[in-house]
C-alpha cells in the first residue's frame, strides 16, 4: 500500500505552477508575437488603457503591454541565470567546505560570511563598473551574492549527512567517495536545497527589478519591470497603469515561485509524503 508508486500531489505546488506558468507563458509568447516593436514610440504619451494600446503607453509613447511582455522574459532570465550561477558555485563551495579539513573549512566559512555581509547592490555596481550595465552583469552579481548563501546552507547539510550512519555503512562496504556524493549526499541535501533555490529564484527576480530600478540592469530597449516602475514613478497619479501592471506581475511571479518552493518541499522528500 505505502510502497505503491504514486504521483505526489501538492495543492501549493499546483497553485504556484499556475501563477509562475502564467508569467512563463507570457515570456514565451513575447519571442513570437508582440503587439508593437519594443522601440516603437508612435503612440501618444501616457495613454490610459484601451484601444489600440491595451494597457496604455508610457511617457515616451511606447506600448506598455509590449514592455511588460519583454519584462517577463527578462525577469525569468534573471531568476534562472542567477539560480544557475548561485546554485552551481554555491553547491561546489559548500561541498568543498563540507568535506574540507578544519583549517580549510574555517577559511571558506569566513569568506562566505564576508560575501554574505557584502550588499548585493554594491556588488552589482562593482560588476557593472568592471563590465557594463547589462542583464548579464546583474545576473552575475545576484548569482555571486546568492552563491554565498547556497554554499553556507550546503556546507551545513553536507556535514549533517556525512555524520549519518548510512555514510559509514556505505563506506564499510567499499563505496568510493564520488559515488557516495552522487548516490547519498546529493539526494539527501536536495529536498532542503531545492526549496532554498526556489526561494532564491524569487529573491533574484526582486533583486534584478531593484537593480534595474537603479539603472544597473538591462539597458533599453529591453524593458525590465524594475525600470518600468522607475520610469512610471513620476507619472503615477496621471497614468497608474504603468506602475500597477509591472508591480502586479512581479508579485504574481514571486508568489508563484514561493508557492512552488513550498510544494517542492512536500514532494522532494519521500519521508514527508506519507503524512499527506
Amino acid at each position, binding site marked *: 500500500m*505505502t*510502497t505503491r*508508486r504514486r504521483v505526489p500531489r501538492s495543492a501549493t505546488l499546483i497553485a504556484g505552477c499556475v501563477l509562475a506558468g502564467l508569467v512563463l507563458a507570457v515570456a514565451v509568447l513575447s519571442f513570437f508575437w508582440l503587439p508593437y516593436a519594443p522601440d516603437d514610440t508612435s503612440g501618444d504619451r501616457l495613454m490610459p488603457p484601451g484601444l489600440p494600446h491595451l494597457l496604455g503607453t508610457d511617457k515616451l509613447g511606447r506600448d506598455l503591454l509590449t514592455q511588460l511582455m519583454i519584462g517577463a522574459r527578462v525577469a525569468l532570465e534573471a531568476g534562472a541565470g542567477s539560480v544557475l550561477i548561485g546554485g552551481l558555485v554555491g553547491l561546489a563551495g559548500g561541498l568543498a567546505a563540507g568535506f574540507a*579539513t578544519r583549517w580549510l573549512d574555517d577559511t571558506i566559512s569566513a569568506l562566505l560570511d564576508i560575501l554574505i555581509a557584502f550588499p548585493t547592490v554594491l556588488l552589482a555596481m562593482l560588476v557593472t563598473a568592471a563590465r557594463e550595465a547589462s542583464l548579464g552583469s546583474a545576473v552575475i552579481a545576484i548569482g555571486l551574492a546568492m552563491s554565498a548563501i547556497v554554499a553556507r546552507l550546503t556546507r551545513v547539510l553536507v556535514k549533517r549527512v556525512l555524520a*549519518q*550512519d*548510512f555514510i*559509514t*555503512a*556505505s*563506506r*564499510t*562496504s*567499499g*563505496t*568510493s*567517495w564520488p559515488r557516495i556524493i552522487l*548516490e*547519498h549526499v546529493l*539526494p*539527501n541535501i536536495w*529536498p532542503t536545497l531545492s526549496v532554498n533555490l526556489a526561494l532564491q529564484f524569487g529573491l533574484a527576480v526582486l533583486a534584478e527589478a531593484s537593480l534595474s530600478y537603479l539603472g544597473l540592469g538591462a539597458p533599453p530597449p529591453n524593458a525590465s519591470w524594475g525600470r518600468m516602475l522607475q520610469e512610471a514613478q513620476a507619472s503615477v497619479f496621471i497614468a497608474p497603469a504603468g506602475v500597477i501592471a509591472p508591480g502586479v506581475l512581479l508579485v504574481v511571479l514571486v508568489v508563484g515561485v514561493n508557492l512552488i518552493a513550498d510544494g517542492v518541499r512536500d514532494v522532494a*522528500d*519521500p*519521508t514527508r509524503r*506519507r503524512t499527506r
Partner: protein
Amino acid sequence: MTGDRATLLAVAGLHVRSPEGRDLVSDVSFTLDAGERLGLIGESGSGKSMTALAITGLTPPGMAVSGSVVFDAPGLGRTEVVGAGERRLTSLRGRATSTVFQEPLTALDPLMRVGRQVAEPLRRRRGLRGRALDAAVTAALEEVRLPDPERIARAYPHEISGGQRQRVAIAMALACDPALLIADEPTTALDVTVQADVLALLDGLVRERGMALLFISHDLAVVSRIAERVIVLKNGAAVESGSVDDVVNAPRHPYTRQLVGSARRLDSALDDVLDDWRAP
C-alpha cells in the same frame, strides 16, 4: 585458534587516541582466523566500536591510530590498514570486511529505496546489471528471510519495520561477500523477540558462507550464543580472552566475573518470573 584455518586478521598493539589525548583503545591484540567467530564484549565506552572502526580504517577524523591491523584475505594479499591510503582501503572494504551497525534506521539511506541500496554492492562486486541485478536483489532479500521481497525492495526504509530494516542491513553487508563480517551490536536496537530471530539468522548465514564474524556486544548472553571465542574489553584494554566456555564458566578477571554474575542474576530472575507465570 584452530591450526587448520588461515589467519584472516591480525591486530597487534592497536592504540586509538582521541584529539583530546584520551586513550579510547589501548594495546589491543588478537587474531581472527578465516571462518572463526569472535565476540568483543564490554560496556559502552569500553572501546569496542572504536576497535571495529579502526579495523576498517574508518576512525573519525582527528583520532590517532597506531599499532598494526593486517588483513590477509584470499585474493587480496596482505594489507596493513593503519596508515593505508583511502584508495587502498576502499578496495579492501566490502571484500575483506563489511559491517552491520546497531541502529538499522540510520544505517540505511532514508531517501533511497531499499532495493537500490542492496543493489549497489551487488552491482559493484558482481558486475550485475538490469534484470540480473533485480533478481540478485530479490535473492539477497530472500536469503535474510524477508517476506515479500519484491515489495520490500520498492519500499523506503521508513516504510518497513525495525527488524526488517536490520535484515536489509544484513543483506547489504552480505552482498559484498566479505571474508569478515563485523556486527556492531546488531540486535541491541531491536525488541527481544526480533533479537532472537536476527541472531539466529546471522548465525546461520555466517556458518553457511564460512565467513569470519566479529560480534560486538555488551550482552554476554548474546555473545556466548554466537561466538566461539571472546575478548573482554574494559576502558579500551583487553582484560580477558579465551573460549566462550572458559570465560563464562571460569572468569578470571574481576570485571568478567561481574559481567557473568549479572548475566546469571538476570537469567535466574527471568526464570523465576517465567516459573511464576507458568505455574501460578
